[in-house]
Structures are given as C-alpha cells and as structure tokens.
C-alpha cells in the first residue's frame, strides 16, 4: 500500500464525489463553526431559496468578532459597539433561532472566540473536517483535524448541503527538530517559521507540523502554531494527534465518552503520516536556535529575533514603505522602542497558559506609566478559569484592563482599537496596516514579550523577567 500523509487520510475519508478534470470533489464537512460577521448574507440566501440548514446538529454558533468586551447583562449593553454591530449581533440571534442552530450567545458560559471554544468544548476532534467563515480556522488542525477558512458563499453551501466543492490542495511538511530554548514560546516558533518561508510560502498547501519540537508542545501551544498557518498563506495547518491530544480531549462536554471514547481513540491513533509518505514540499527548522521574535513591518513575515537588527533591504519600495509606516530603522534592533498599547488576546494567544505566562511577568510589577494594557480572555470559560486561579487580581494590581472574551483589538471591529500612530505590542496574528485601527502600528509577539513590554514601557527581551523557565 502506498504511504500516505495525515492529510491524505482525512481528505480521502471525506470525499463524497471524487474530483475530475472538469469538476471539483464534493467534500463532506463534519463541523461547521459560525459567527456573526461572515454569516448574515448566507442566511439571507437560505431564506431567499427557502432552504433549511441541513445539519444544524453539526453546526455550532457563537458571537465573538463585533461583540463588546465590556459586560453584557442586557441588550442595552450592546449599544457600545454601535448600531451596525448591534444589528449584526441581533440578526445572528434571530438566524440561529429561526434555523434551529445551537448558539452560544451572551447567556452562555461557553461563549468565546470560535477557535477557542471549539477545542474547549471537545467539538474539535482528530480526523474531523472543520470549516468556519474565518481564516484562523486552521487553529483546529492542532488536533489532527483538517480545518480551513471559507467565505460567505461557501458558508451557504455548507449550511444547505453540509458539503463544499473542493480541489485537493498540495502538502507541505514543516519539520521542527530539537529542544525549544527556555523563554521561547510557540508564538516565537511560528513567527520564525513564517519569517523563513514567507507570507506566501504555504499558498496552495496544507502544512503538517512535525518533529520532536512539535511533539513536546502542549495543546494550547500547538493551537498557536496551527492558528498562524494562514499567515504563511497555507490553506490549513495540522499536527498528528497523540497522547497529549487525547488527554486534552478526555472528559470535555462534546468529546465522546465511555465505549465511544475508546473506539474514537483507536481510530485517532491511525491518524498520522506513514513512514515514507511524500510531501509536495518539505522545510526543516532547528528549534534549538530560536529566540523571542518580534515583527518590525506590516506583515507577519517581517520578523526578527528580539535582539537582532531590523534587516536592511536595498531597492525594495514595499520594504521601505513598511518601515516608514512602523517608524522603525533598518540596521537597529527594536529593543528600547517605546510602546503605547499592549494587547494580550486573540485566537492566537488568549488561552489559560497564555494568561498564566502573562501573569507570571506582571506579578509584583506595574504596567509602565503611559502604557495601556488590555487582557482579553479567549472565552468566558478561560475567563472563569483565570479568575479561579487569581490571575485577574494580578492583572488588576498591575494596572492592566481585564475584559470579557472576544476578538477585540486583534481586528478592532467592536470599538477596541489602537489610536492612529500609536505603537501596539500585540499577541494577535496580523500586523497589517490599519488592522488594529486606522494608522495603528502593530508589533506581533508572544504573551511573554507583550507583558514584558507593558512593564518596561518599551520593547525588552522577556527573558529578563522570567523567574522560572517557561
């Protein structure tokens, strides 16, 4: 039998009608995650055509993008996000009610960023095909699922048929070998990978992250890695499931239980690339040389080690323009650059371990004068867990703002924005021009680097703050 990749196995198991030269495959979707921003037009289409949602039981809805990060106790509290966002939120509630979809809304303790709650509830499982109208759906690949972002037209397709028309993408193996040094996080690793292969290095491909360094990571770190696959242009990112995955999923509300659990684990154990499986492309990364990473430009591939100088690039107008926008100098490191805002949150870095790391640096310290620090948990459950561990007290004592869950300042849709010209150190995933607000300047970094910047009031090597190895 031919050796196949993890992706090959999941792909072939979900083909309903094979692709031909003339037509794409009809491809089955096991879990459809939906949120308020990219679905309204899809539901309108169903209404126009008089179609039901075919499998509401495989559809999971929440609200995260345009929602307030201040408490919502009644509908009046929605006014803060403005009339359009408010209308969108109310429409989501109506759509889910009319079409019989389970909505984890403001009355649910399970509400949160869609890519945080899927795994948290155990709805994200190895071997599943998962889609969502959001490019960071790649996050769920950390469990050995094939998970990818789709547009609104395709959301309509899945709602109506539970299938998509797909051509099989190519495969890219990223082998990460060696020991990740102390004080270096999964965020630093994925930023380094994007820096190496480029923001289009994965276009047309599904990435499988493999190797000894990946095996050592916990599930939250693996989610951070897979989350930013799209920042390398990839269709999806995946990591083969193992005991770490099974341990994480065991006992979660939507995980299988009893005999079904045992059967599921047996099935999941087969989900790995065979010895000798061939990938269309392969890249190898040495983890032992990694250091904390910071972006200096206006895409996530423009990234350097914290103590390294911003590179010099002759005759590159794009590069010069990015440096002008960011107000950074080629040839100099970002160290000591004064920061205005620090944001810890987003589907990349808003889980409990991210907040624990942040707290370990803030504990006994103060956010520097003139710096605003906002900490936004990935879900209401993460919020509860953080509060149970007393992290909120550490954040508040340090002078940071502690909010309700949501996408928040990652994309600034809900009014949480970075003022024009201000420099933000953000644990999110995109440093595009204007992403966090008109004229906002964004440096992407790990929660450790972000927290260190908040305390120092400037970019510093976070390792000076770490009392114990991460």
């Amino acid at each position: 039998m031919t050796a196949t990749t993890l992706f090959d196995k999941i792909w072939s198991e979900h083909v309903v009608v094979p692709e031909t030269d003339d037509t794409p495959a009809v491809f089955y979707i096991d879990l459809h995650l939906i949120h308020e921003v990219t679905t309204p037009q899809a539901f309108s289409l169903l209404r126009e055509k008089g179609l039901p949602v075919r499998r509401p039981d495989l559809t999971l809805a929440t609200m995260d993008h345009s929602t307030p990060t201040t408490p919502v106790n009644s509908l009046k509290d929605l006014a803060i996000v403005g009339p359009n966002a408010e209308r969108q939120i109310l429409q989501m509630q109506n759509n889910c009610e009319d079409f019989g979809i389970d909505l984890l809304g403001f009355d649910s303790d399970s509400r949160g960023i869609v890519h945080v709650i899927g795994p948290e509830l155990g709805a994200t499982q190895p071997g599943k095909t998962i889609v969502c109208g959001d490019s960071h759906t790649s996050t769920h690949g950390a469990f050995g699922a094939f998970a990818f972002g789709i547009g609104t037209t395709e959301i309509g397709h899945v709602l109506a048929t539970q299938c998509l028309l797909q051509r099989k993408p190519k495969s890219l193996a990223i082998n990460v070998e060696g020991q990740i040094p102390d004080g270096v996080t999964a965020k630093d690793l994925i930023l380094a990978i994007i820096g190496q292969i480029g923001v289009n290095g994965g276009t047309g491909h599904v990435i499988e992250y493999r190797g000894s360094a990946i095996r050592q990571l916990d599930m939250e770190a693996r989610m951070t890695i897979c989350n930013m696959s799209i920042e390398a242009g990839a269709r999806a990112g995946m990591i083969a499931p193992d005991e770490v995955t099974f341990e994480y999923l065991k006992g979660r509300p939507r995980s299988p239980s009893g005999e079904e659990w045992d059967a599921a684990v047996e099935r999941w154990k087969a989900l790995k690339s065979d010895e000798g499986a061939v990938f269309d492309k392969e890249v190898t990364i040495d983890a032992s040389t990694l250091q904390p990473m910071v972006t200096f430009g206006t895409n996530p591939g423009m990234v350097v080690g914290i103590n390294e100088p911003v590179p010099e690039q002759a005759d590159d107008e794009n590069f010069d323009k990015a440096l002008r926008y960011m107000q950074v100098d080629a040839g100099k490191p970002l160290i000591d650059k004064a920061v205005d805002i620090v944001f810890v949150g987003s589907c990349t870095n808003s889980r409990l371990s991210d907040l624990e790391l942040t707290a370990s640096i803030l504990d006994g310290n103060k956010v520097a004068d003139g710096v605003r620090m906002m900490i936004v948990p990935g879900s209401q459950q993460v919020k509860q867990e953080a509060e149970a561990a007393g992290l909120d007290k550490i954040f508040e004592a340090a002078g940071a703002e502690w909010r309700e869950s949501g996408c928040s300042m990652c994309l600034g849709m809900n009014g949480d924005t970075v003022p024009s010209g201000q420099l933000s150190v953000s644990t999110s995933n995109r440093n595009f021009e204007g992403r966090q607000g008109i004229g906002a300047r964004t440096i992407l970094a790990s929660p450790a680097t972000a927290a260190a910047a908040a305390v120092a009031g400037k970019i510093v090597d976070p390792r000076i703050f770490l009392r114990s190895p991460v």
Partner: protein
Amino acid sequence: MSNKLITSKTVVLPAKDIDTDQIIPARFLTTTTREGLGEGLFRDLRFGKDDEPVADFPLNQPETQGSQVLVGGNNFGCGSSREHAPWALLDYGFRAVISTEIADIFRNNSLKNGLLPIIVDEETHAWLIANPGAEVTVDIVASTLTLPNGQSVTYPIDAFARYCLIEGTDQLGFLQSHLEAIEGFEERRTWTP
C-alpha cells in the same frame, strides 16, 4: 459589451501582499448585506485624516475612473477570509484582478462572485505594473489576457470555475444535485461526527 469579454484600462497598485484588511477594513464588516461595500474599498489608502481623498492614490486619479481591471503586486488578497473583499471590488466596478500570485481564500471567494482572479507570469506582470492605464482585454471563454500590442497570454483557471463564470451556473445548485450521494455517504460512514 459582451459579458464574456472585459476591455478596460488597468489600475495599478504595485505593492506586494495587499491584504484583505487594506482592501476592506474590518469596521465595514458589520454590514448584514453584500451591497454598498465599494464605499469602503481601500478606504484607508484612498482617504486620509478627515476623509480627505489621498491625491496620489491611483483610485483617486481621474484617468482610472471606470476601470474594471486591477493589477496588484504579488500575493494579492492575503489575510482574512472576508468575502467582503471581492464584494467591495465588484461593487466599486472591478471585474478582474491580475497578479503573479493570489491568496487561496480570496481567489475562491472571487470566483464565487464573478470577480476574475488572473495569474500571469512575472514578465507580463512587470510590464503591466510599469504601464498603468494600459488597455487590456480579458476573454473569459478563451482564458486569455490581451495586451495593447496584441500579445495574448493564457491564464490558468479551474475548469469548473471557468464553466460557472461562462454559464452563470449556481454552484449551490450543482452541490444540491448530489444530495443523494451526500445522504448515502452519511449512511455508510463508519463513524459519526
């Protein structure tokens, strides 16, 4: 004019990696319809503080008005999955986007809406970048792009996507025609999600 042919002067945005946040900033995504997004297209590049038009931005120049073909730098449309990006381009009046590489989700979303993503070789691209306002013709049936000197290049396009563009086929209808196969698939699977 035939809807299988697009003849237009080009607008050129030479920057690489033009992302969907630049194409349509997130604050315009609170809409619940597809219409009217042209207003937000490249909003923060077209307009400066106090909503004053940025004079040297190509879309603000008189000679680019009415253009239907946008030429962008490599890796056009990277970033988020927002279909609002092609909706905004279409609403503004564009019918085709040309680059050396177009990001996966943006390309898919464009094809679903009749915005044609055209990939050309580096030499053709360099010429287009260097010659903004050149009149080009896109033949959707032949999958060719013809330059002012008469030279034609064939661009790659998925056969099914091309068929749908030409025939105006509803892809949802195509999927629905396979409903029996989908039901059969659900019945015979060895595990249920």
